[in-house]
C-alpha cells in the first residue's frame, strides 16, 4: 500500500451556488468525484489548522496565475465567496488515474476568500474569516437621525 493525498477546491457563494471545482492531483484531466466534475488546476494548500483558540492564521492557497484562476479569484474576492479545500487520502497502489470511491476525507476547511496577492506567474489566495479584527463592532447599529429624529436635549 502507498499512502497518497489529493486536494480538491470548490468556490461557491453563501447560497450554495458553485462557481469552480478544481483538483490538483490528476494532472491534465477532469475527474469526476462526488457527483461533480473537478477541473485540473495546479494549486497547493499550505496545510490547514483546527484549534480551540481564536485568531487562527489565514490559510493560503498557491496556484498558477492562469486566466481561469485569476478571473475566478478576482470574482471570489469581490463577492466574498466561500471556498472549501478538502484533503483526501487513498492507497495509490490501488489506482492512480481517478478518484477512488474509498478515499478518505482527512479534513475539509471552509473559509471566505479574504485576500491574496499575485505576480505575473503565480497567485496566492488567502482564506479566512470575514470577521474583521477592526471593523466588526457590537452593537451593530447606532442612533441616526432617521432612526430617532433630531434627538432631545434634557
Amino acid at each position, binding site marked *: 500500500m502507498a499512502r497518497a493525498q489529493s486536494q480538491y477546491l470548490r468556490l461557491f457563494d453563501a447560497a450554495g451556488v458553485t462557481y469552480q471545482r478544481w483538483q490538483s492531483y490528476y494532472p491534465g484531466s477532469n475527474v469526476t468525484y462526488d457527483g461533480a466534475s473537478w477541473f485540473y488546476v495546479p494549486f497547493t494548500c499550505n496545510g490547514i489548522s483546527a484549534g480551540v483558540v481564536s485568531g487562527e492564521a489565514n490559510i493560503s492557497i498557491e496556484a498558477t496565475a492562469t486566466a481561469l484562476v485569476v478571473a475566478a479569484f478576482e470574482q471570489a474576492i469581490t463577492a466574498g465567496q466561500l471556498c472549501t479545500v478538502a484533503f483526501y487520502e487513498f492507497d495509490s497502489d490501488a489506482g492512480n488515474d481517478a478518484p477512488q470511491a474509498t478515499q478518505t476525507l482527512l479534513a475539509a476547511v471552509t473559509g471566505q476568500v479574504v485576500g491574496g496577492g499575485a505576480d505575473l506567474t503565480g497567485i496566492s489566495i488567502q482564506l479566512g474569516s470575514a470577521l474583521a479584527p477592526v471593523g466588526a463592532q457590537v*452593537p451593530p447599529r*447606532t442612533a441616526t437621525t432617521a432612526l430617532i429624529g433630531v434627538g432631545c436635549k434634557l
Partner: protein
Amino acid sequence: MTSNSFRIAVGVQLNRQRYYAAQAQIQAGKIATPNKKQAAVQSPLDVPQRAMEIGAPIPIVFCRYRNNAGGVLLSPGATEARFTNSSVNAVTAYYHLVLSEGQISSIQEKDVFQRYCRVGSYNQSYNRRAGSWSPGNAIVQRAGYTLPECPRNCGTVGFYTGMSTLSFQSPAYPDGSDLWNRQVHLFVRGGINITRLFDNTVGPSDNFADLVNWIWSNSSRVPSLLIDTSSMQSAAVFLEKTGLTCNVIISQAQNVAEMITKLAPYFLLSESNNNGKKGLRPVLPVTSLGEINTSAITPEYLFTENEILPGSFAVDYVSYTERQPFVVQVIWRQQLTDDVGIVRTAEVRYTGTAANGPYEQHDLSAFCTKELHAVRVGAYILAKRYHSSHTLQFRARPQQHTKVIQPGDIVRVKLARQTSTAGRLDHDYLYQVERISRTLAGEVSYECSHFPVDSQGRSLIALDVMAATPSGTLLTSNRTGLSCDVNSSSSNTIPSDVGQSGTDLGVGIDGLTPGQEGAASGGETKDDGLDTGSTVTATINNSRNAGVPQAGAVIEAPSACPVGTTESMKWYRNDAEVVGIVGRYYVIGTADIQAGGSTIRGIWYCTSTSGGVTTTTQTPVEPVFVPANAGSITDWMPSPRVLYYEGYYARNGAAYISFKSIIVPTVRVEGYDASRNFVAGTQQGFANPSPGQAWSELWPLTDTPSVVVTLVVATPYYGASPAAETIEWIRV
C-alpha cells in the same frame, strides 16, 4: 449597572472536603465616603433622565429572568419628550425611550419605575415609535405660579426601525416639584427575542452561545456556512446544564472578536476554529448530556513512538510564578427586580493557601447574576493553574488518528525515556488537543495542554469545578422608608401596544448603483527627457550598402546640444573610450571588427556657463553594433602632419575612400605606384563642402592588386602641408 452601587465582599461557603477555605462571616465591605452630590441623592436610581445622543449605539438587552435570577435593570435614554402643566401648574412629562435592538419581551407594570417609584403609565412597541403624543414643550404660564423650567429641545419623531421602544407618561407632579425630570428605569425580564440553540424556540435567552450566534450573524455578517452550528449547539447545552447564564446590556461599542475572546472563558468556553468554521466549545470534558464530566475519561487515541516523529516531541512547563497559590476574586451581580443590582464578590482559594492573597480579580458583574456561576469560574481559573503543569507539541505521521482526532479531544501520549544508567522513565500523560495542523507532507502537528487526572482517571479540574458550591446567601438592598409606589408591585399588567409611524425628515441617502469596470484604454509612453540626456540616433553613411555598419562606413551623430552650449563628443568601443576621436564622425575601422562584434556608442557633452556656474549635460548616441563579419580594411591612422598615406586596395579597379575632415576645406587625393611614381589620372580634388562632413567617394583607379597606392592629402593642393587636423583615411 450604575457606578453608585454598593459593593459587599462575601466569602464563599465552600465544601470542606475539598481544598477550599471557608469563610462564614460576612465582611463589611468598603463604602466610599459620600460626596456632596451623593449626600443629596438618596438612591442611585434618583438621577435626571438622560437623553440618547445621535451616534450612540443602539443597546442590546440580552437577558432572561428565571428561577429568581437574571434580568437586567435598564435605564434607557430618551429621544423625544413632551412637557405640559395643568391649571395648578402640575407638570406632566412624557418621554420616548429606546429600549433595545430587536424585539424584547413585554414589560410588566410592576417593573416600570421613575426614580425608585412605581409610577406613571406607559406603552411599549416594536419597530416603530411608541405612544401617540407629539414631542414639544407645551408649558404655559399659569397665573400665580412660577413657570416650570422644562427643556425646550424635545426632539422629533423617528422611525425606530427594528428596535423596541417605550413611551412613558409621568404622573402630574405638583407645583414646585422637579421630580418630572427623573430617570425612567425598567426591569427587563426577557431581552431580545432570538431562536435559542438549546430548544430551538424563539424567545428571550440568557445563553452566551445564543448571544455569540446572534452577534456573528447580525454584527459581523459571518456567513452561516462558516459557523459551526454543531459546536454552538453543544456549547448551548453545556451552558444550560451547568447554569452559566448571561444577563447583559451591551451599550458600549466594542470589537466583536475581542469581546468574545474576553468573555468566553468566563462561561468555561473557548472559541474554536474547526476547519474554518467558528464555534464555541467547553474547556472541560462534558458528558453526552452536556454536563461536566466527573467520571473517568477515556482518551480518544494513544500516541506512542509508532506515531510520533523523532525530534518533534517538545514539552513546555508552566513557569513557577504561574503556579503559586493565589485567591481568585470573582465579582458578580445579584440582580434585584426593583433596584440596581448588588455587586458581590466570591473568593476561591485552596485550603491553607494564600490567606492574605495575592488576589486576582475577575469582574463578571456585567453579565453574571448567579453565585454558582461565579464560583465555578473562579474554581476553574484556580484549578487550571494549579493542576495543569505543561503543554506539549509533537508531530505524528499520518495514521488512523488523522481521521479521528478533533480539537478538544483527550488523547494519551506515552513515550519512554530510556537511559543507560538511570533506567526507564515513561512520559505518560493525558492531554487535551488544542490545535491540529495538517501539512502537505502528510504529517500532522498537534499542540496539546496537560489534562491532569486522578488515580481513577477523572479530570482533576472538572472535579474541583463541580466541588465549588456557593454560599447561597442572597442579600437585599436594604432600602427603607415609605414607599412611593403608585402602581402595584405585583401587577403583571401589560398595556396595549400603542405607536405611530415615524416622520421622513428627508435625511436618507438614495441607494447608490455601482458602475461596472471596463477595460483599460488610451495613454501613451512618454519620455520627459529628465533622464541623463535623451538619446540621439546616429546615421550610418555607407555608399556601398546604405545604412549598414560595415568597415569603412561612417557613424555620424547628429547635433544634440542646445544653442549656446559648447559641444564635444567622446566615442566608446565596448564601453572603452576610443581616444583621439572627438568629432561627430566615427569611421568603422579594423579595431571595431572583432570576434563577437563590438558596440560603438558616443556621448555628447554640452557645456554652458552661467553666473559663474558651469553645467554639463550628456546626451548619449544610440549605440551601433558592428558585427564580426563587417568586412576587413586597412586603416590609415594619420597623425595630424603626416601627409602620405599608404594603403592597399583591390576592388574591381575602383577604390572607395571614406574620410573625414574637420576643418580642412579642400583635400586632394593622388595616387602613386609602388615606385612612388605618380599615377596619372589619380588626381582628385575633393572640395569639402563644409567642415566636418565625410565622404565616401568612388575613385576610379586602374590598378592591380599588387600595386601600392599612396594617397596624398594636400591643402589646398598637393605638395602643400595640410592643416593640422585630424584626418583619417580608411580604404577598403
